[in-house]
């Protein structure tokens, strides 16, 4: 039995708990009766939504931070975007939560591991409960998929908080498990469709920052989630050619599909294009997380001219081409001659 059959088999087994065919017919009927009208995720696209004017972005003194550990922003009624508090981790990644009729997809889990330090699980459960209450669903009927954009700890650290959650599947921490989780056999070119229940998420490989990275496109809000390979800050490019090819793949996708926003996992830049150095826990004038397709195209155009390792500013993001040792843009302010 290959992995895909195995997954389908499990799903079928969950839907029909009894092997007796006569009873299963009854069970199906009962589920259908209890089941509310499915939400239509396929018309009037793109679904309107909004980003906050300003995200919560840390405080001058970390121990005096009284903001919520996770900021929950409802982009629209069926899409939440979570962000880790800067005083809980300087990485403060963003994490979209996409709701479908059958499944919920959580992308990225922040940079704190333990639930008693940072209760991501509780926040996600609460979001699911809220959404279910609004839409007349039973939270237990929804499957939660806990996935991440790429294989870095600031994106998967809290995965274990979901280990004992019923009706939940989470991505494994190897390249094989990640690619297999989305049933891909030809990474990174292959584009697969994840059906959340009427809401399609398109997923394909996006290596370059790390090998194991995906791009996620939500066909409902038409947000393109580019992980850490392209975000508003310092895009650390570990492998130039794979990254450039991934950019090309994103551009090709934008040529053929409508995209409302391009969204990365972090923000490390101010509205005035100043760099917030690696590790900062307060970004008072933070730039918005969402970018336009135009900004992506400009970055790609800029990248076409890059031949050497170094730090390049595209007008939107810093492309840190193979600069793992010198990723800081600021200088010692006290230099004098």
């Amino acid at each position, binding site marked *: 039995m290959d992995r895909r059959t195995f997954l389908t088999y499990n799903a079928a087994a969950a839907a029909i708990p009894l092997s007796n065919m006569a009873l299963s017919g009854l069970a199906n009927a009962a589920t259908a009766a209890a089941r509310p009208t499915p939400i239509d995720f396929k018309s009037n696209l793109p679904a309107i939504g909004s980003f906050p004017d300003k995200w919560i972005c840390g405080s001058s003194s*970390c121990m*005096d931070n009284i903001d919520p550990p996770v900021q929950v922003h409802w982009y629209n009624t069926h899409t939440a975007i979570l962000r880790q508090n800067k005083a809980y981790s300087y990485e403060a990644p963003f994490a979209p939560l996409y709701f479908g009729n059958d499944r919920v997809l959580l992308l990225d889990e922040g940079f704190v591991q333990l639930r008693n330090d940072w209760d991501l699980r509780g926040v996600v459960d609460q979001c699911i409960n809220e959404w279910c209450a609004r839409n007349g669903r039973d939270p237990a009927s929804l499957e939660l998929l806990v996935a991440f954009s790429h294989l870095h700890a600031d994106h998967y650290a809290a995965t274990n908080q979901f280990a004992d959650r019923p009706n939940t599947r989470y991505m494994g921490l190897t390249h094989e498990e990640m690619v297999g989780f989305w049933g891909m056999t030809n990474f990174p070119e292959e584009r697969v469709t994840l059906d959340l229940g009427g809401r399609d998420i398109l997923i394909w490989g996006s290596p370059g920052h790390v090998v194991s990275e995906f791009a996620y496109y939500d066909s409902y809000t038409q947000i393109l989630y580019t992980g850490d390979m392209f975000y508003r800050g310092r895009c650390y490019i570990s492998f130039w050619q794979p990254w450039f090819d991934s950019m090309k793949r994103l551009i090709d996708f934008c040529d053929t599909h409508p995209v409302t926003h391009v969204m990365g996992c972090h923000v490390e830049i101010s509205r005035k294009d100043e760099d917030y150095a690696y590790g900062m826990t307060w970004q008072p004038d933070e730039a918005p997380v969402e970018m336009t397709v135009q900004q992506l195209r400009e970055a790609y155009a800029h990248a076409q001219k890059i031949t050497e390792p170094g730090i390049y500013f595209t007008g939107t993001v810093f492309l840190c081409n193979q600069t793992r040792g010198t990723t800081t843009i600021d200088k010692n302010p006290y230099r004098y001659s």
Partner: protein
Amino acid sequence: MAQSSTYNPALSGNPQSATGRAYPNGNPDLGYNPVGVRNTDSAIPLRRKSAVVHDYACDGPAPGNLAFRWTYGSNVAAKNRDPRVQVVQYNEDSFVLRQNVCVHWEAPFTYLLFGNKGALLIDSGATADAQHYPLRETVDAIITRWAQARGRSKVPLTIALTSGEDIAQNQGLVQFAGRPDTTIVPKPIEVMKRFYGLGKSWPAGTGKIDLGDRVIEVIPTPGTHKDGVSFYDPYCDFLFTGDLLFPGKINIGNDGDFIASLERLKAFAASRPVKWILGGHVEMMFVPGKYYPRFATFKPYERVLEMTPALIDEAIRYAREVQGKDMMLIRPDFALFNGVSPDQRTQVWPDGVPNINPPRPF
């Protein structure tokens, strides 16, 4: 050769450390009445009519130790509940204050020294907001208590900075604005030089701050900052070097000045007894040559604060190696950054230094 940078409990002065002392139960050969006794206070009430006049003349360094571990932040900075200002009393007349790492990642050290005629606060922390970093409140409380013990109603306070321009050390100054009986050493470099009487001789010569039988010497030490100074306390035999020399990432502002200042410091230290050099921060870990990144709010494996005077020689030697070059250089007890970004990394590891990976906190 500089000290081994591994943790040496004998140097920590921690009396709780059984391994740190050759004589865990005391050394009878030293006699029952060591000279340091007269530099400590009696608990026997004296029914005195006038203020205590303390004897700061001392054979060797005044007795004292840094007997507590520094607070080091927490994994989740928002949940840190350590004191905002950690106060460690070195001896009855010398206090070391540290800012909480989760209030400001620089976690600077601030020193409060007392003499018969007044007190001196060296540096003022990295946060201006008294709600977040109640430096003034803490200093006032220490002074009040000390004044009660010594029977003094007034303790004039002088506030001096190891560098007026360093925002990791000058932010707390505003909290002392309008404080009675307080002299703040002026910040502009020319006025500061004149205040210390160094207007003509800078960077040669030394200035003085007289605390009453405890005369703190001021040594011009530009190099990391244009207006850098170091302080020498002849009572505890400490050199307070601020940003110039500390166990951390030393960002050199001007390498010529840096070496000249270290050499001046070396000559100075050769003419006076120096027990420890106390810098303004700790950024190194307790394994040699490893340090915390900028902005870290959790530093559980910090090196101790105190450095031996032999480190001046080591600093001079390796400062010469980086002179005129844009490079960084790792040593067991500090790292030099000359003309490179403060986050510069290097693959070059110093010869003969064990490369130990400390546990990664998560």
